[in-house]
């Protein structure tokens, strides 16, 4: 695999994560449990879509075949997506949504902090902008996980169920492979495994404040960020996300 191929893969991983998770979060619009949450979720989705424009924009640039961020977002089928499985999991209840958000945000912020020092200026620039937004996301999702974990017995039960459900999807964020090896070698991005210890410590602290118990299993689903095997959920998401571009090819909006 050439450096540029790996770089393109890496950028798709970044941009597809924010695209797919941003889409999921945007599904809440108008349906959140309380008005402030509606606003906050829309804000998170907005940040993630903005980051998608930057990551996929750069991906298209690196690929050099003239594909724009929109082309990459709207005209690839499921197998070409490189987001982790966690990002495409359905919203479930609000607790499940916030648990997914926290597990992701906590890894996202650690990664972006490193990327702000990337050997590639463009990556460093995007990361420097995104890390500020994501620092706010993680603060908020962490608070919500703690508030609901340490809330009523029902909210506690639901948050524990969300953690149990989503835990097997967390590990994929920290697996290394050929792509990440090349990126680390070039100093563009750290090996994902190098972030695990800091993530574990932060998550452990949050869950303990939230009075939630981290599952005892280290089993981790895989197949999202390599594109080998997404879940059935992604394809359904794309039917919506890409509808207009597919139905009216070449139109400008």
């Amino acid at each position, binding site marked *: 695999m050439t450096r540029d191929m790996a770089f393109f893969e890496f950028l798709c991983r970044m941009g597809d994560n924010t695209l797919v998770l941003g889409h999921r979060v945007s599904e809440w619009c108008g349906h959140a449990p309380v*008005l402030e949450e509606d*606003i906050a979720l829309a804000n998170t989705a907005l940040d993630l879509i903005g980051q998608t*424009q930057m990551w996929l924009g750069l991906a298209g640039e690196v690929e050099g075949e003239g594909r724009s961020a929109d082309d990459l977002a709207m005209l690839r089928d499921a197998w070409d997506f490189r987001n982790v499985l966690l990002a495409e999991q359905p919203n479930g209840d609000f607790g499940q949504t916030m648990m997914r958000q926290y597990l992701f945000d906590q890894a996202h912020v650690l990664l972006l902090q490193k990327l702000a020092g990337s050997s590639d200026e463009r990556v460093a620039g995007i990361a420097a902008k995104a890390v500020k937004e994501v620092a706010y996301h993680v603060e908020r999702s962490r608070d919500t996980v*703690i508030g*609901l974990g340490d809330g009523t017995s029902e909210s506690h039960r639901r948050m524990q169920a969300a953690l149990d459900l989503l835990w097997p999807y967390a590990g994929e964020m920290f697996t290394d492979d050929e792509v990440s090896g090349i990126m680390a070698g070039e100093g563009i991005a750290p090996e994902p495994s190098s972030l695990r210890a800091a993530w574990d410590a932060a998550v452990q602290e949050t869950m303990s404040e939230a009075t939630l118990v981290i599952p005892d299993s280290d089993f981790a689903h895989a197949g999202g960020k390599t594109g080998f095997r997404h879940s059935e959920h992604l394809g359904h998401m794309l039917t919506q996300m890409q509808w207009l571009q597919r139905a009216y090819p070449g*139109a400008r909006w």
Partner: protein
Amino acid sequence: PEKLAAFQARIDAGEKIEPKDWMPLGYRKTLIRQIGQHAHSEIVGQLPEGNWITRAPTLERKAILLAKVQDEAGHGLYLYCAAETLGVTRDEITEMLLDGRMKYSSIFNYPTLTWADMGAVGWLVDGAAIMNQVPLQRTSFGPYSRAMIRICKEESFHQRQGYDIMMKMANGTPAQKKMAQDALNRFWYPSLMMFGPSDKESVHSEQSMAWKIKMNTNDELRQKFVDQTVPQAEYLGLTVPDENLKWNEETGHYDFSQPDWSEFFDVLKGNGPCNRERLAARNKAWDDGKWVRDGLLAHAEKKAARKVAAE
């Protein structure tokens, strides 16, 4: 009666009434109803546009639409705060929305069926809303007036975005142009209805005008909206779906057909195309969210208690 006269005098003098000031019960009630309805309209108004967020055609359009819907939720928030200064809690009036005691603008009972509807909603619906709202910046109740100033600024931005979508569609492929025309066909009359029935049939109008809660008559505003919108439609190359529409040299206004008021009253009664879906969506959000609100409240109380215990 003396107090009443003094109150009216303050209003006539252009003074703002503030929450702690004395005010007649009717003034308070009318304002709660009006601000509450307006707040509810912002909240329910998230739904027809929210319907297209997951299908927005580009990342930029998706971001713009998200930001807009977020603004609407923000407007709801300001307005609920303004209503709260009149002694009614947000939960109270939310429940009145959910069980049908309070209304929201009927326009949001119409469906959004194509992407062009995102343009039409911005251009026509926000356009009509602004027409209603601009005069309310001068309304007599201080918190309401200040909320309206802030809201109007954002709304006119939304309207421009909506018009921009229409422009792209009207100048796009034949299918896009057809979509744009179709959206105008469906939203024209419902937008005219947004100003309410003709003044002759409108209740409470006189007292509200004296109190500067209502600033113009429905027919005045509707005419103003038509006069402003028709040239915009022409500029887009779209046809307003009204055979009787024509410029009247004498009056200096457009003559136009009235909307089908029986449809208006049907929608008010709950028979609009989406009344059921809209209220069901809000009720579901509220019911499904109960455990979240309870959980966060319980946590806040625990935290406060721990803090007290630690002191």
